């Protein structure tokens, strides 16, 4: 039996070969890029940055909680902070696919699930703050607040749509559900507009920020439409510079390895 380190080296070699053969076969550089980045680190710097970035708002929240920096109305502050963070992360998770298909930034695909799950994490905090801290789990008050107020109702609906997505985010679920997984995860195209409406309906008169987020979400969803994607896939609209440099980087990396 081979010692552990040797096994890993063998795996790396196999992957490298697979990667090269992919490129020889003219496969999309996306796949090659993903494999290449896997060869280099367990987590790429980009992934680490995304994980840290996603956790920072939570760290700041905890810090501010224990340092009493959550204003005189801390429940309100926790609610709005967790909601805002969830919104931003959801938008970022929706941006991953277009970043890859339109701009060729394929590393984004590697953080899509993490961003989605972090968004769900903040949504859970947001929801728990509302039902627990704010309404003290008082079902009568909650029924009134959730079902009689449209902003709360759409927010609640958005939360519900995210639950199956979070539950089926594992690789095992992807395998088990096969094609249906993709169909199921298109539910997020419903979640995002619900979240925007939730935001739009809860602000006091000044709807500029919800509209800005709405515009971004609309753009990100439009970029998924086949017609628009066809147009954008024209070579002129992609960013060849980025792809070229990436391929060059990989080539250099390989030559270093083989040397």
């Amino acid at each position: 039996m081979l010692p552990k380190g040797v096994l890993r080296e063998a795996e790396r070699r196999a992957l490298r070969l697979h990667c090269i053969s992919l490129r020889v076969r003219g496969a999309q550089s996306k796949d090659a890029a993903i494999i290449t980045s896997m060869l280099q680190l367990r987590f790429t710097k980009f992934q680490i940055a995304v994980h840290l970035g996603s956790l920072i708002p939570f760290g700041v929240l905890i810090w501010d909680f224990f340092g009493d920096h959550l204003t005189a109305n801390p429940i309100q502050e926790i609610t709005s902070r967790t909601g805002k963070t969830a919104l931003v992360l959801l938008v970022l998770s929706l941006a991953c696919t277009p970043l890859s298909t339109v701009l060729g930034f394929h590393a984004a695909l590697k953080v899509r699930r993490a961003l989605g799950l972090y968004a769900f994490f903040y949504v859970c905090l947001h929801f728990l703050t509302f039902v627990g801290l704010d309404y003290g789990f008082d079902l009568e008050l909650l029924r009134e607040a959730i079902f009689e107020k449209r902003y709360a109702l759409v927010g609640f609906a958005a939360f519900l749509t995210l639950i199956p997505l979070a539950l089926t985010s594992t690789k095992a679920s992807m395998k088990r559900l096969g094609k249906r997984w993709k169909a199921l995860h298109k539910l997020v195209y419903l979640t995002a507009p619900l979240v925007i409406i939730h935001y739009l309906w809860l602000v006091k008169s000044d709807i500029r920020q919800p509209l800005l987020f709405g515009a971004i979400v609309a753009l990100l969803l439009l970029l998924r439409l086949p017609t628009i994607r066809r147009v954008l896939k024209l070579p002129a609209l992609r960013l060849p510079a980025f792809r070229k440099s990436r391929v060059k980087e990989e080539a250099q990396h390989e030559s270093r390895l083989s040397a």
Partner: protein
Amino acid sequence: MVKIRSSEITPEHLFFSRRRFLKAGALAATSLALGACGPRATPASSGGEAETTTTAAGKTTDELGGALTPYEVVTNYNNYYEFTVDKEGVAPLAKDFPTSPWTVQVGGLVKNPKTYGVEDLLTKFTQEERIYRHRCVEGWSIVVPWQGFPLAGLLQEVEPTSDARFVRFETIYAPDQMPGQRDPWYNWPYIEGLRLDEAMNNLALLVTGLYGKTLLPQNGAPLRLAVPWKYGFKSIKAIVKIDLVAEMPISLWMAAASHEYGFYANVNPTVDHPRWSQATERRLGELGRRKTLMFNGYADEVAYLYEGMDLRANY
């Protein structure tokens, strides 16, 4: 497109390290989130120094037994869009706002129009302390010991004519000093109004101070209104103009969203804001919610003003 399932190419140890990472994060998160429910009953500021929660007269509660909101909270958590929409951002931005010299023009349909220096108002009208509940339309409330004098006294002096039916208040327009007024979204300056009989009610107070101290800019210095049976936005700040008029004034909030903010804006737990319930409120410094009282608990003093009126239509 060539699709490779990443499970085929990701070495197992990579999977597991990632799983551990996520798990550890989630565990830390839940324990901290649960901890958030426990440690403190009063999360309001506790910077170490003693909080001011007693008036000069030694009072610590309103007539219903509600504790006074600490001075530090009242002076650091402010809804004052002329400065910023960030409630904690108001105090620092308002720090150097000039409140002297300051004049208040009282005119319109009156027999004796007059411009008062704010210092004249302080000496001319006896200042008294009133502990009022202040209920914001956003669903939070505070208890504040104001000093000031009844608006009725000022109105009696200028003698409204028989045509005068409403009082229109106007805030200073000073975009140089009030950065929020540079935002064109709102129709500055801030305008508010009362029906004349509401304005003559003894509860309607022109405020010059709180907790025995001179009013600070973030609370509407040098002169603001306090009409405690109405939502907070009716209590206009930094008043420079008071006019007696025949027609109902259109307030800034009515102009911004007339279906949400009406002229009367009486605190009423049975009439919901179109987007959120007004049945309950959170008293700052308390966890949980308390039931909102009709006319904010001042029904005995003001209910007569609205007899026979449909308060759902006149929100």
